């Protein structure tokens, strides 16, 4: 008989702790998924995903923690909310992605698309520092953190980026000085509180 196996058989897990975390954040709704694939069919970035959105939901339901957390998908999801908007079962798939990202970050392991969480962290750090985003600082910090500078140089992208940067600058679109640190004190408190609200 022709076999259609793509990977080795997986024995179903009985440990539900991972799924419980997601359910805690999203409610029982996630169980109601009937795998209709509507989320995946409408996802603008599905073409570069390793796990399609419906498969992400499925892996949560089938207790496959590793599969979900080590996916590229959770990082390249553009948070466009298309899936959430159209899911017939009112599953907030975009939020599932968020929750999985949060769990992944807290797990301390390396993300499949490491640049993305680095970017987000840099972003939040910028806020923490200035209260608002200063695009230039964000950009340079991110490039430094993610090793992006050498990447872009290697790929030759830097020429593009440089050209773009110069154009932006010439058009007055790059603000050079960071904003004054309004409300930063208050924000610090929030960031501290945030640490107490870890997932696991």
């Amino acid at each position, binding site marked *: 008989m022709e076999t259609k196996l793509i990977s080795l058989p997986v024995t179903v897990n009985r440990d539900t702790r991972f799924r419980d975390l997601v359910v805690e954040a999203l409610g029982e709704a996630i169980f109601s998924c009937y795998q209709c694939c509507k989320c995946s*069919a409408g996802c603008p970035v599905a073409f570069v995903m390793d796990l399609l959105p419906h498969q992400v939901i499925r892996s949560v339901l089938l207790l496959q923690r590793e599969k979900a957390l080590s996916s590229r998908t959770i990082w390249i999801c553009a948070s466009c909310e298309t899936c959430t908007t159209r899911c017939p079962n009112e599953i907030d798939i975009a939020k599932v992605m968020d929750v999985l990202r949060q769990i992944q970050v807290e797990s301390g392991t390396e993300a499949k698309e490491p640049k993305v969480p680095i970017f987000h962290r840099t972003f939040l750090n910028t806020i923490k520092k200035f209260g608002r985003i200063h695009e230039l600082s964000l950009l340079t910090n991110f490039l430094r953190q993610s090793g992006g500078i050498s990447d872009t140089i290697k790929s030759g992208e830097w020429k593009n980026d440089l050209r773009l940067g110069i154009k932006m600058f010439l058009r007055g679109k790059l603000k050079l000085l960071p904003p004054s640190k309004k409300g930063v004190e208050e924000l610090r408190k929030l960031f501290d509180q945030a640490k107490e609200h870890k997932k696991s």
Partner: protein
Amino acid sequence: MKQQIVTQQNQKTPVGAVLLVGGGVGSIQASLDLANSGFKVYMVEESPAIGGRMAQLDKTFPTNDCAMCILSPKLVECGRHPNIELLTYSELLDIQGEPGNMSAKILKHARYVNESLCTGCGTCQEKCPQKTLSEFEQGMGTRKAIYVPYLQAIPNIPVIDKDMCIYFQKGKCRACEKLCPAKAIDFSQTDQKLDIQVGSIILAPGYQLTNPEVRGEYGYGRYQNVLTSLEFERILSASGPFQGHICRPSDHAEPKRIAWIQCVGSRDPSINKGYCSSVCCMYATKEAIIAREHDPEVRPTIFYMDIRAHGKGFDQYYERARDDYGVRFIRCQISKIIERPKSKNLLIAYVDEGGKIVEEEFELVVLSLGMSASEKSRNLAQTLGIKLTPYSFCQTASLSPMETSRPGVYVCGTFQSPKDIPETVSQASGAAAFASEIISSARGELVTIKELPPEQSIAGEEPRIGVFICHCGINIGGIVDVPSVKEYAKTLPHIVYVEENLYTCSQDNQAKIREVIQEKQLNRVVVASCSPRTHEPLFQETIRDAGLNKYLFEMANIRDQCSWVHMDKKKEATEKAKNLVRMAIAKASLTEPLHEQELKINKRALVVGGGAAGMTAALGLADQGFEVVLVEKEKQLGGNLRDLYYTIHGNNVQEFMHSLIEKVHNHPLIQIILNGVIVDAGGFKGNFKTGIMSGPGMAYRKIEHGVTIIATGGEEYKPKEYFYGHDERIMTQHELEGRIVHKEIDPKDLQEIVMIQCVGSRIPERPYCSRICCSSAIKNALKIKEINPNAHIYIIYRDIRTYGFLEDYYTKARKAGVIFIRYDLDNKPETSLEKESLRVSVFDPSLRETIVINSDLLILSSGIIPRDNEELATLMKLQRTQENFFLEAHMKLRPVDFATEGIFLCGLAHSPKPLDESLSQAKAAVSRACTILAHDTIMVSGIVAQVEEKKCAACLTCVRVCPYKVPFINEQGVAQIDVALCQGCGSCAAECPGKAIQLQHFKDEQIITKSSALFKENVA
């Protein structure tokens, strides 16, 4: 005691009339059942004509019958029935009173056409200058301000749409009034209120399509080439806006790549449409097949979630679509349709079988929209104080889906839950049984029975023929030179009288025909006019009223077959009209009076099978006042109910069964025969004779009865698959249910449970869906979850078929954490059984990997097979399907009748179905049976085959040929045909080598003379 007398005095006697709300196929069926079993019927329909949605459909699944062809005869019958009063363009405002005696307030909207004067000639419609979009054509075609909704509409009386009429809007025009030859236009009409006394009410207001705009991502209304399924039906229809030519709205090009998107507005809890609409999977399949038939280059694609082919013959239909018609089924819900700005083609992205995203271009997309209750019917229910479900359908008792929350008011069809035509029809009959039960004592009190004059004998007379030639306004007269046809007719042999009329069918001309018959001593009448389809019965009635046998009437079809189809060839049309008249006269001169035999009806019923269906049928008939003999082959009643404990809705089945058995035992009109075996059977509708052996001594009895109901049921298939029988952890759903109830299994001890669906069903050996096993599995899974919420349950399925509101239980099960894993026939789950471990491995198509579950129990959802019924089928000459379920007379419109008249079927004997549907169907069988039992005698059609014994060589040809197995070789060694059984098809006559058989009214001589008459002139 005293009190009882008082209440009895207060109670008015029941009224023998029923009010039907709605004029769709459901209502039509219920009204015919009721009117034919002795009750007066009022049918209130809000639109100008009856027919409902079915009239708009092209073909119908799974037989692909033309919807209009099979509906039209029923429409005509309703329109002509003396005991059915059609109140079209009307609505029910309110009801008052008690069950059995209610008064209904009805608002009859002004039609502005006098119904008794209008002859339906259509002149007004043709001449009216004001065009508007036709609702019937879903806005894709036009109609006039004065209009009949569709061609075959009943009543064929137009109505003026006040909002569109120029006269009403601007005070000028009145063209219709001027041109109406019957002077039927009446602008002074006003809305009228009527009060009608009835005993009971049936609501059948049907459904409306769910608004496609609830799912804006599909662009309906924005994208021209995105259509609703009903719009597509009209496009397919030969009488539709494009004459059945498939073309798309944007550029009228022929689309080749057509996609259907399923479940639009159904199975969508996010918009409070959590239910499945039950019909859209099948109608999309049908539309795809028909599109392919119209144009073999069409490449249909259906995007679906589960194919719900849960009805009789549906799975085979679906497979044929896929395998023979190349319909592509892709399991993916579509997120969005994108219209390409220039070509207006439509892009659809989907996930293919291999888990890849594919974008494909289509030229036309059809949205398979679901059913919703209309706002109007919701309001009506509210005024009547009838409870609705959360989805705004009519709420009913869970084991009695025809009873509303208000006593005396019943429901049927799609207002109760989404369903197809056969289920609507069957439920309609069921509702009719309920509605008539409470007024059965008033049966026959309000019906009209016509007194007829004695028939005059014409024996030995030469033919004296009268000919009436109709102008049909200008329909005939405008093309055919009627006066010259008249002059010509006068020259033909046997003609005593010829007359032309503007409208031969009008009331006054009917009177005229009667007069002329008397005056001129006519003994044959020929009318040259429109069409026998609609008018032959009318003229036959007229000559019968004048004392002539109705078979002495003959019609020449000079409108539908002449003037209408040769409009541009007036001369030829006139010539042809003459030919047709000559042919009709030739045939008329040879017609003979035929006598419809009157047979007495035995008012007893035989019910075979003492399960839920059989017992319910027996009780139903007995409650209508008829004697019943109930035969059960086992030693006790109950059938499958004996080991069924709860339904998915939570009913206590054992309690239900015991009370049913008790009622059956205690009913004075029911006689029960246990351990009964049917050993011989004979007779015909109204007069059957059946031999039964019963009891320990196998005593023989002959039962005489007028009708038979077959309720021999079905049983669980005992699996041979998945190690069933080799391990006590492996069992069927049915067995699981029993073990839980009897505490042999405690769900608390279970961690992991696997259920496998479609065991023994939907496989080449048994290609049908057993319909109930999906919900049985869900029922039991929910039961386990209720007791042990931590149990992990995996249901391995092919398609989940929780049609209608059952979908809610599927949703509930998922929410409770039951995991559903899909498999294909070529990728079945595998089990391995070792001492300790019971492992099931299955390929999960979502994650595309094989999953292995270590299970505590393996539950097989095995299918339903019919009980052994071969002998019974042979004895009673009953037809069966390939799978040995019994076969009804017509899949769509006669779902509980056998082809053999007087025999009905219900329950699992017909096909697998859950308890509530078996009970409804049993009621339906009761209603159908009552249409016979209500009468004292029946007339047998005069058009039957007769054997000339001398010529018969007993060659057995007729015995072989007759589709109804009527002819047999009698004791004299010649063929004999029972007139009560013969359907009059003429097959035997055509094949009898000795020409020993003649079909009355279509004798060889008559047909040959008629056809030869065409050539008389040429050859002479």
